[in-house]
C-alpha cells in the first residue's frame, strides 16, 4: 500500500497546484540552462557557418569577433597561395542598424528595376528620409564564390554578381524581395538562411565585400571619411577584418598557421582556437552570468521544495504519530515523505519541461535543449528533491507516537 500516493490522491488539487508552482520555477531554471546552451551555440554559429579552417587577422588581435582587426584585402591572395590552402576569402563584419519599410512582414518588392520606385512609394517622396522599422543586423561582407558566404540558403537564392543584394537570416523577419536600408544604401533581400546569428544573437545578413566596404566607409564618422577621401590619412578602403582559409584535408592546419604567424603584421587562428576565443572570451561574462543565475534558481528551487515537503509533513503530524504508534517502521515513514518529495519533483519537472519546450521558440534568444540537458536537469531535480526531503524526514522521525493520543 503506497501511502504517499494515497495521500496525494486524497489532496490532489493542492498537490497539482503545488506542482504547477514548482513546475513554473523549474521551467525557468531549465530555460536558463537552455539560454546558456543557446548563448554558446549562437557564439559559435557564425564561425561554424563560415566553415573556416584558418582565420588570418591583424597581428596582436584575437579578431575579428573578440577584438578589432583590419588587414589589407590583398592578403587574401598571399594566403590563397600557401601550400595546403584550397580557398581563401576576405570577410568583413559590422553590426548595423538597418531600416526596412513595412515591418518584418514587409511585402516583397516588385521587379529589381522597379525597386527604387517601390521604396520611394513606401518611404515617401523624400526618398532618403530614414523612416521604417529599425532592424539590428550583423552584416558580413564576402566575395561571392569564395569562403565567407552564407552556409545554406533555405529560401530564395544566393547573392549573384550584382550589387546591392543581401541574404538575410530568417530570424530578421525579412522576406525575399524586402528592401533594407543601411548607411543610406538600399539592399534587396534575395535569399534567407536559417539560424545564422552573431555572438550577440543578432541575425546575420550577407552582402558582397565591395558593398560592405562601401558601407564601412559610409558608416565612418564624416571627418574621418573626408580625410580618407582626400588621401590624407585614415584607413584605406580596400580592407577586410579577416581572411578565412579552407585547407586541403591532407594539410596540417598548425603548420600553415605557424607559417602565417611568421608574417609581419598578421596573426592566425585555427578553428578550435577561434572557438575558444568565442566561448572563453566573447561570451564568457554572459555565460557565467547565466550559469550563476541557473545555480541560484536551483538553490531557490531546493529551498522551496524543502519548505513544501516540510509543510506537508507538518500537516501529517498526527497521522505520522498514529503510524508510529500502531507500529509502522521508520522506513515506512521515511518512504512516505521522500516519495512525496520525489513525486512533487517529477510532476513539477515534467510540467516545467513541457511548458518550456512548448514556449521556447517565443524567447527572443535561442533556447537550446538537448535530451542530455533535460536528462541531466532531471537528475539534478531528483537530487534536489531527495536532499530537500531530508528536512521533512528529520521532522517526521522526531514526531513522538504519544502525539497521536489526546485531543
Amino acid at each position: 500500500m503506497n501511502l504517499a500516493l494515497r495521500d496525494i490522491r486524497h489532496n490532489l488539487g493542492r498537490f497539482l497546484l503545488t506542482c504547477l508552482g514548482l513546475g513554473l520555477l523549474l521551467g525557468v531554471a531549465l530555460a536558463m540552462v537552455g539560454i546558456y546552451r543557446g548563448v554558446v551555440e549562437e557564439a559559435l554559429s557564425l564561425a561554424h557557418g563560415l566553415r573556416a579552417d584558418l582565420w588570418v587577422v591583424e597581428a596582436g588581435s584575437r579578431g575579428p569577433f573578440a577584438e578589432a582587426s583590419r588587414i589589407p584585402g590583398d592578403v587574401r591572395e598571399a594566403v590563397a597561395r600557401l601550400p595546403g590552402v584550397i580557398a581563401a576569402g576576405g570577410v568583413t563584419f559590422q553590426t548595423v542598424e538597418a531600416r526596412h519599410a513595412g515591418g518584418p512582414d514587409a511585402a516583397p518588392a516588385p521587379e529589381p528595376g522597379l525597386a527604387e520606385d517601390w521604396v520611394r512609394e513606401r518611404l515617401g517622396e523624400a526618398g532618403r528620409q530614414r523612416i521604417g522599422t529599425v532592424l539590428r543586423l550583423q552584416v558580413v561582407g564576402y566575395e561571392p564564390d569564395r569562403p565567407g558566404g552564407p552556409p545554406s540558403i533555405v529560401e530564395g537564392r544566393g547573392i549573384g554578381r550584382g550589387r546591392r543584394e543581401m541574404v538575410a537570416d530568417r530570424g530578421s523577419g525579412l522576406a525575399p524581395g524586402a528592401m533594407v536600408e543601411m548607411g543610406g544604401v538600399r539592399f534587396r533581400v534575395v535569399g534567407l538562411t536559417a539560424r545564422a546569428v552573431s555572438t550577440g544573437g543578432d541575425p546575420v545578413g550577407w552582402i558582397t565585400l565591395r558593398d560592405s566596404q562601401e558601407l564601412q566607409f559610409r558608416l565612418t564618422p564624416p571627418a574621418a571619411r573626408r580625410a580618407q577621401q582626400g588621401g590624407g590619412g585614415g584607413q584605406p578602403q580596400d580592407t577586410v577584418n579577416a581572411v578565412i582559409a579552407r585547407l586541403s584535408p591532407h594539410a596540417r592546419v598548425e603548420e600553415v598557421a605557424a607559417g602565417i604567424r611568421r608574417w609581419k603584421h598578421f596573426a592566425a587562428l585555427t578553428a578550435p582556437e577561434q572557438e575558444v576565443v568565442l566561448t572563453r572570451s566573447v561570451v564568457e561574462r554572459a555565460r557565467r552570468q547565466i550559469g550563476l543565475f541557473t545555480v541560484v534558481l536551483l538553490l531557490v528551487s531546493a529551498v522551496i521544495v524543502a519548505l513544501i515537503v516540510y509543510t506537508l509533513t507538518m500537516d501529517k503530524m498526527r497521522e505520522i504519530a498514529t503510524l508510529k504508534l500502531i507500529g509502522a517502521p521508520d522506513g515506512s515513514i521515511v518512504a512516505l515523505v521522500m516519495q512525496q518529495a520525489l513525486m512533487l519533483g517529477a510532476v513539477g519537472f515534467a510540467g516545467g519541461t513541457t511548458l518550456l519546450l512548448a514556449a521556447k521558440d517565443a524567447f527572443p534568444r535561442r533556447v537550446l535543449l538537448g535530451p542530455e540537458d533535460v536528462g541531466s536537469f532531471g537528475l539534478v531535480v531528483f537530487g534536489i528533491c531527495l536532499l530537500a526531503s531530508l528536512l521533512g524526514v528529520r521532522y517526521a522521525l522526531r514526531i513522538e507516537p504519544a502525539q497521536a493520543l489526546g485531543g
Partner: protein
Amino acid sequence: MRAPLVELVGVAKGFGEGEARVQALSDITLSAMPGEVVGLRGPSGSGKSTLLNLVACILEPDAGLLRLAGETVWQGRWAPGDLRALRREKIGFIFQFHNLLPFLDAIDNVALALTLNGVPLAEARRRARDLLDYLQVGKRASAMPAKLSGGEAQRVAIARALANHPRIILADEPTAALDSERAQVVMDLLRRVAREQSATVLVVTHDEKIFSRFDRLIGLRDGRIETETRPSTAEDV
C-alpha cells in the same frame, strides 16, 4: 493458571528536573487479566494518560517493573528488542478521535495495520473486510473517514486495533466524542472482544455513563491509585 497480560509493579514516572520536577506516577502496582476490561479514571493531571503511555511503551518508567503478555518489557531499562514491533504485534490502540488516516478508506485503514505486520495486501483486505463485518460497519468499507459518522469511525478504529489479534487493547477516551447510545455500543464491543479474544482492555475515561461497563475501575489521584472498584453489572455480551 492464567497469568496477567498487563502487570506493573512499583512503577514510577516523573517529568522535568530539580524544583520543576513533577511526579506523574508513584508506586503504581496493578495487573489486568485476559478477558478483563479495566477502566482508569481520575481528574486531569492524575496520571491516567501517563499510565497508558507507559503500558504502550511510549514513555519509559523511572522505576519498577513492567510486564506485558508475560514478557518483562522494562526493569531498570528496556528489554532488548524493537518496541515498535512489540506494539505492532501485541498492542491495539483506540483513540479519542479515532485517528483514522484521512487518505485511506475504511477497509485500508484496517488493512494497513495488517500489512505493517507483513500480511500481503489482498489477504489483509479480506481480513479487514471480515473485521468490519464483525463490527457491523462492513457496508461502509469503501467510505473515507471524513464520510463516516462518529460511531462508524470509532468502530473502524476498533477494527484496526483488533486487526493483528493483540492481547492488549489500550483505549484513550474512546467514547468521548460519542453520544451515550453509541458509547454503550462501543463499550459492549470492547467487552465482547475481551471475552472472545481473551484480551485485556485498558480504558482511560472520564465518561461516567460507561463506568458500569468495566469489570474493574481504578481511580487515580496525584499519580497514585486511590480507589479500585468492581462496578460491572452489565451482562456479558
